[in-house]
């Protein structure tokens, strides 16, 4: 057995073990009467432009939530990211409506450790002090992995391209091209601590399985208000993410992801959601940092406040 194959098998075994331990099986059942397309080199073909607009809230809301604080969702309905919550989306997409995108644990609630919620609360209350208190999204660095695929409400296009040995996902928001090698190479060494971790993929049947480690502790697991309570929850260097992409019919990829971080969550948790094929969706350049007024304006508001300027509420 070659080293590469051995490594692939080892990764597959680890992933399988992780899956058995804590994750409900993915919905990987391919539609009947539909032959999954293949790329010229015989891999399952996931290529195209996909979007993740949804009418399903991220978590099941709870009375203890403070949506006005971390999500700006004043009525606390835990709305999804479609037209009902974002006026700028004027399309007539048929949005799925389920209880929550979080499917495991069955409560639909992410098992966040109290310290991590406190950390989030502190940072969001102090965005006027220092840019590091914003999430990496407002800083225009990244929405993270898997955060970058969690719904945001706009800028929600993803183009998947494949060449032999690689799958690439081009994220519209923050213009990232995430390139996933499939050749069984090992993860990068431990000195690499990356915003988006280090992705290694392989095929299990028609499912693309991506294993990600090597994260830094500066990013957050989710960045957007649509992720409600999970927004701005920190990630540690022990974050480990396993994503599964299964094309179940011509127009749908079932995406699910298991997130574990023993420093931040009391148990692993899982999100399952569809990506919809939208070949006519126009992906625009999201030149975020180049036009970032949010960070300097917020900070400068804070410095004006320090000098006793009246707050905007009283003006």
């Amino acid at each position, binding site marked *: 057995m070659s080293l590469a194959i051995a490594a692939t098998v080892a990764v597959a075994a680890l992933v399988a073990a992780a899956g058995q331990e804590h994750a409900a099986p993915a919905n990987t059942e391919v539609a009947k009467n539909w032959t999954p397309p293949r790329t*010229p*080199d015989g891999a399952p073909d996931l290529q195209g432009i996909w979007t993740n607009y949804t009418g399903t809230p991220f978590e099941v809301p709870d009375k203890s939530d403070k949506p006005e604080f971390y999500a700006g969702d004043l009525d606390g309905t835990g709305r999804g990211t479609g037209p009902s919550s974002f006026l700028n989306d004027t399309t007539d997409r048929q949005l799925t409506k389920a209880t929550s995108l979080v499917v495991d644990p069955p409560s639909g609630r992410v098992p966040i450790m109290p310290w991590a919620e406190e950390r989030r609360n502190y940072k969001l209350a102090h965005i006027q002090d220092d840019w590091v208190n914003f999430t990496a999204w407002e800083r225009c660095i990244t929405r993270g992995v898997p955060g970058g695929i969690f719904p945001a409400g706009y800028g929600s296009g993803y183009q998947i391209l494949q*060449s032999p040995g690689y799958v690439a996902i081009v994220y519209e928001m923050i213009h990232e*091209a995430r390139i996933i*090698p499939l050749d069984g190479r090992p993860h990068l060494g431990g000195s690499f601590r990356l915003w988006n971790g280090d992705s290694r993929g392989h095929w299990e049947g028609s499912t693309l399985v991506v294993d990600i480690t090597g994260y830094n502790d500066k990013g957050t697991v989710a960045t957007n208000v649509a992720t409600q309570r999970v927004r701005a929850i920190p990630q540690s260097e022990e974050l480990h993410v396993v994503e599964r992409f299964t094309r179940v019919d011509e127009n749908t990829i079932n995406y699910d992801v298991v997130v574990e971080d023993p420093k931040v969550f009391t148990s692993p948790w899982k999100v399952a959601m569809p990506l919809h094929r939208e070949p006519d969706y126009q992906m625009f*350049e999201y030149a975020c940092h*180049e036009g970032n007024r949010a960070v300097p304006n917020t900070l400068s508001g*804070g410095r004006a406040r320090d000098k006793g300027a009246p707050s905007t509420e009283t003006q």
Partner: protein
Amino acid sequence: MQNWVKGAVIALVSVAGTLAISPMIRGPVEGRTPDTNVLRTADGKPNLNGIWQAVGSANWNLQDHQARTGPVLELGAILAVPAGLSVVEGNEIPYQPWAAAKQKENYENWLSRDPEVKCYLPGLPRATYMPYPFQILQTGNNDILMAYEYASASRVIKMGKVEPPPVDTWMGQSAGRWEGDTLIVDVTGLNDQTWFDRAGNFHSEALHIVERFTPVSPDLLDYQVTIEDPKVFTRPWKIQMPLYRRQDKGAQLLEFKCVEFVEEMMYGHLRKKTGNEKPFSAARMRWP
């Protein structure tokens, strides 16, 4: 004339002709017989997949430039500017008079004006020859991705006919087609915010470039670009340089998310002071 002499003369003339047309040619000329040494995809197209990088100092200055001291005294040789031969055909960038003056002003105000200092998107063609690798991901029969390590920039080259770009952007809209073994990329819809190099060479939003990627051997691409911008230049002009395959074992694009490296520079004056800040030294800077 004896046949061998005739042959030699023809060869010399043809070499001279090639040199006269394009004095910097190192790779094949477009339309040349396909090199059997070129990697190919299943459908017979050249296979450009891989991680590539320009070697040289075009990002410092497209034109001939001598080595010189850098802008920070304390950085000594580390940020000194390396010398480089021109990648511009004929070494002349045909600026209109006002634009030549602006380029000079840009050069003198490099540190405050170069969008690279602020980690802004590099635009094209600059993304190709920045001192970072980029990866070409060529799909079976469709779009081609070029992903750049610098600033997580990327572009998807749409093959075939495309609608005009709806808005101007930093990376523009790339439309590709094959002509023999050459991938030709027509880039339009570029905004006026990017530069060509660290020497203040610039353009307007009327910029239109045509890039030509031609494989010379499995590990070498010939990169040529025709640049036109009637608002800034008096005529189209060309650059050319080789692109080399990164041979490093396990080569992959790594993160160069440089936004994080410029926040202190851009926003530091707006941060709430805690008294625990690590002070910066008063580095001595001078440019040019």
